[in-house]
């Protein structure tokens, strides 16, 4: 299977601030990829690099085998729903569909009309008068009616209420089921992604912390609970992500190909949210450690 997105050493700097550091990533095709990380982790930067809105400071990124936004053909193959789902407030829904039809050779007019109908939107209404959820649906309609091979969505549901969130994700999954496109969507909440993603990328502190198939990630990450002991005292074949101790008990979050058979540990499965949180706190602590050493 070819990769829909192949990044090698991808770095974006704004002045001295690094928005994305040395990101090497290969996302498989035909998947719904969730990109999760705290605010300011570099999610938007990565997605903007992928659709060519930004140029990398160093490193390379290829999307569907070519440089992002390298030409009309490449642009036609990638759909993008930007954060806060921008639309032209002065133009009506009808106008948006017409410009979509004018600007995209692969435009599926029937699909666009059907979606506007089923959403119960009045085509004559100005986009500026739509609710956040309706605007997000309009932006999604524009992105999917161009029939992209890869659909990129940047925090599409962040500003939506729970109902609009559910409807939006449902619409997205319908499109995936019908057209088999690959999807990359970002969120700072794992719960948004859990239901729709089968591949996960955790981005924190401008770096990719982990990426992989969701089932595989769940199968290789565990929580170990046992009598209090040193964090160094790990079962063989496990990598420590996070450790917390009470007076009597140690809790470790570890990564390993198979759970340990050491009977002194009680092995618990990890849900996706805990897994992501462990990587986020790992990234946050990694940033802090040198400061502690310096003050010692």
């Amino acid at each position: 299977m070819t990769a829909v997105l192949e990044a090698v050493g991808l770095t974006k700097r704004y002045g001295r601030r690094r928005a994305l550091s040395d990101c090497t990533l290969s996302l498989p095709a035909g998947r719904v990829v969730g990109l999760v990380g705290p605010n300011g982790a570099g999610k938007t930067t990565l997605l903007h690099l992928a659709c060519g809105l930004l140029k990398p400071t160093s490193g390379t990124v290829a999307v569907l085998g070519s440089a992002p936004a390298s030409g009309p053909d490449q642009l036609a193959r990638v759909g993008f729903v930007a954060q806060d789902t921008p639309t032209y407030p002065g133009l009506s829904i009808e106008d948006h569909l017409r410009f979509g039809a004018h600007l995209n050779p692969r435009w599926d007019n029937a699909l666009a009309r059907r979606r506007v109908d089923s959403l119960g939107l009045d085509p004559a209404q100005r986009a500026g008068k739509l609710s956040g959820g309706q605007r997000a649906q309009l932006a999604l309609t524009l992105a999917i009616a161009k029939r992209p091979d890869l659909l990129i969505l940047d925090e599409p549901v962040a500003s939506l209420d729970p109902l609009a969130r559910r409807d939006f994700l449902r619409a997205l999954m319908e499109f995936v089921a019908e057209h088999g496109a690959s999807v990359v969507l970002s969120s700072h909440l794992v719960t948004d992604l859990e239901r729709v993603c089968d591949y996960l990328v955790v981005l924190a502190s401008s770096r990719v912390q982990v990426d992989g198939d969701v089932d595989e990630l769940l199968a290789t990450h565990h929580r170990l609970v046992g009598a209090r002991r040193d964090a160094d005292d790990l079962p063989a074949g496990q990598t420590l992500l996070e450790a917390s101790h009470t007076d009597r008990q140690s809790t470790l979050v570890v990564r390993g190909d198979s759970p340990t058979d050491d009977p002194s540990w009680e092995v618990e499965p990890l849900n996706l949210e805990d897994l992501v949180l462990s990587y986020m706190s790992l990234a946050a602590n990694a940033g802090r450690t040198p400061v502690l050493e310096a003050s010692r």
Partner: protein
Amino acid sequence: MIWLTWRQARTQTLVAMAALAAVAVALLVTGLNLAHLYDSSGIAGCTANCDSFRETFLNDADGGFTGIVYHLAIVLMYVVPPVIGVFWGAPLIARELESGTYRLVWNQSVTRTRWLAAKLLGIGLVGVAVTGLLSLAVSWSAAPVDRVSLNRLDPNVFASRGVVPLGYAAFAFVLGVVAGMLIRRTVPAMAVTLAVVAAAQILMPTVIRGHLIPPTHKTVALDAQHLKGFGISEQGQRMEVRGAYSDPGAWLMDVTTVRPDGTDFTGPANQEACNRDTSPKNCMDWLATLNLRQSVTYHPASDFWPLQWVEGGLFAGLAALMALFCFWWVRRRLA
């Protein structure tokens, strides 16, 4: 892309067309009126006393509705280019950057270069065309006055005629686009555009225009017939001599009084001939004996079109350079 550009600019274009139509009607009425005044003034066939015919005509033309439209038309030609720059140029890209819609439109199946080309050329050409039609209408309407008063080179009139307004319009528009691209916010970009265009409109006549093509130099005798008057300082140390030199339709840039040896004459005045108690005639007679000359630097009326083409071309060239910069920036840097 043309459809979207048209859809986004529809309202402003229709407003501009309506305004253009209204102005055109006013100019048509005024132009016909002025033509009628000219025909009935007797200037065309005059053999004697032509100056008084001219004066009567200019007085008539300056009065009432006709006069108001004539003067407003000049003002309008100075206002239109900055308005195009501020209200069409500056928001063109800045608004998309500010509101985030560039993220929508740059991900349609159209390259940024084509997107910019459609916006820049489409709206820019409409702006230049509107200015061109206006300039044509104003130049036609005011033609009888221009023919009589011969003041088309006057710094106040020059940029309201011919092809210069088109150059200013193109310049102001692209300048607005560049400012919007670099500042990325609409209102500051509008302010910068207005400031720069206004500065250009002030600097051109005061500093630059006279040197766009080399002015003509001429030395004329300042003998008894050509002496017209003089000014004298309290102690008689400094003197200023006025000659009767005139060249209808010319733009006088500099007139200096020089001695026969070519040095500037600034006094001192002869104390006997030119003092408080003698008649000015004595002083004039004394001045006539000095063999003074006037050194005149000027653009003759025939420089009107060469100056128009050079100034219009200069601004069109600046607009083209800035447009190239826009294309470079949108591809390389605006990311």
